[in-house]
């Protein structure tokens, strides 16, 4: 469904992605893990057209992907960005409406809206609150909801669990699975590598702009190196995460 060949991105002199290739099959959940500054967000942003790449190609559904952000959304790819980037000046409801900006099927929109309110009841409660004053976690939920409103085929999630309470993290991952079960393909960037790997079909490890490892998620999760670097080996004194 999504195929990236040899992608390179520069920020001025900084070489953020150095020839990244990756493949996402229809209906899969694919995870990307890597430490701070590895280039995960850069990768996601290049797919979305926010960051312009110098070299490499991106194919989507067999065709070359446009480089213009709004056309990319139109073709069915939607990003839930890192740090939420909700519209702080709009109300919760308006934010969600913005999510469905490119859609015109009123019925479908209403249906999705209700589903999102089922998933995140707090959003329904705060329908008219200005989004900028929501708490961090509420904003993250709003960002997810807004992303879903565009009814995309491929969803790019950049650290969706960021700043969420443990209970909610579980919910979010449940929701990700649910969305996936509805037939949507998901490319997931997560710091919470354990969780990410546990729900993914396939995973890539990104280090300093290079893919250093890839494989089936349930294999990677057992990999010693990965355990050490990303899963927090000492992380045994407490059960969660």
């Amino acid at each position: 469904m999504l195929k990236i060949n040899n992608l390179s991105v520069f920020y001025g002199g900084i070489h953020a992605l150095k020839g990244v290739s990756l493949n996402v099959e229809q209906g899969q959940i694919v995870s990307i893990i890597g430490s701070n500054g590895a280039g995960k967000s850069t990768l996601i942003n290049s797919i979305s057209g926010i960051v312009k790449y110098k070299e490499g190609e991106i194919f989507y559904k067999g065709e070359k992907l446009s480089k213009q952000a709004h056309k990319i959304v139109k073709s069915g790819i939607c990003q839930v960005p890192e740090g939420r980037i909700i519209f702080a000046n709009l109300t919760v409801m308006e934010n969600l409406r913005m999510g469905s900006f490119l859609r015109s099927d009123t019925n479908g929109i209403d249906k999705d809206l209700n589903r999102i309110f089922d998933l995140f009841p707090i959003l329904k409660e705060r329908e008219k609150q200005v989004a900028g004053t929501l708490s961090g976690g509420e904003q993250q939920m709003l960002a997810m909801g807004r992303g879903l409103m565009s009814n995309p085929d491929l969803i790019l999630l950049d650290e969706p669990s960021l700043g969420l309470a443990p209970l909610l993290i579980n919910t979010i991952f449940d929701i990700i699975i649910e969305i996936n079960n509805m037939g949507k393909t998901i490319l997931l960037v997560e710091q919470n590598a354990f969780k990410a790997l546990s729900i993914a079909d396939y995973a890539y490890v990104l280090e300093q702009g290079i893919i250093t490892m890839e494989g089936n998620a349930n294999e990677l999760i057992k990999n010693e190196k990965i355990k050490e670097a990303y899963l927090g080996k000492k992380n045994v004194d407490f059960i969660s995460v």
Partner: protein
Amino acid sequence: MNVLSLNNVTKRFGGLTAVDNVSFHIEQGEIFGLIGPNGAGKTTIFNLITAIYSITEGEIYFNDKKLQRKKPYEIANMGVTRTFQNIRLFKKLTAYENVLTACHKSADYNIFSSIMRIGKFKLQERYLKNKTDGLLKLMGLWDYKDIVASNLPYGLQRKLEIARALALDPKLLLLDEPAAGMNPEETIQLMELIKEIRNKFDLTVLIIEHHMDLIMGVCDRIFVLNFGIPLALGTPKEIQENKKVIEAYLGKEEKTYAED
């Protein structure tokens, strides 16, 4: 002695009561956790302590001095400083400049001596530079010192915020989700770092986090908030076993999807 005391603090936004009659006391040298579901009012409490919001009801004391009607900078000068949940660095300045700026309180030369460049100025400026170097090294940011803050990866930006806060030689440090955006390994490292900082700088720390391994691993006591209302207070062990906390916040047990 109590470093920080909240007595029956309430904050309302229009009809919404974000913080509802909350009281707690933090002792000197403690690492005190503040947890609770999203929207519980944790950040609001930080904003009340640092006077970014005005308090609706109740009182906050720092070292027995009342904090009401003080300006944010006055509170900072008393020794209370913080980091932000939505990072607020000086975006276009380098990591080094961010910290150096925050060191300003360690010098007291006035504007005329900076024009005359007299001895005191030079001496103090050198001190500020050394201090900045030390802080950057301590936080593991030395290699990034010349990078503009907004270009740093998310995790390092958080560390830089902590470094900047430490530059004030605070007595009480408020950390709002310092580990957000860090992977578990980095989170553990941060935990060690917080302990180290506490000991080295003789600090009291109030910390908000959703990473339970960090909270449980580092806090002496934890206060749990739910919908603005106090839910529990206790040691990590007590909190982990508290039914109400599990139900409202922690969740029953670890779910695994590997088998799905």
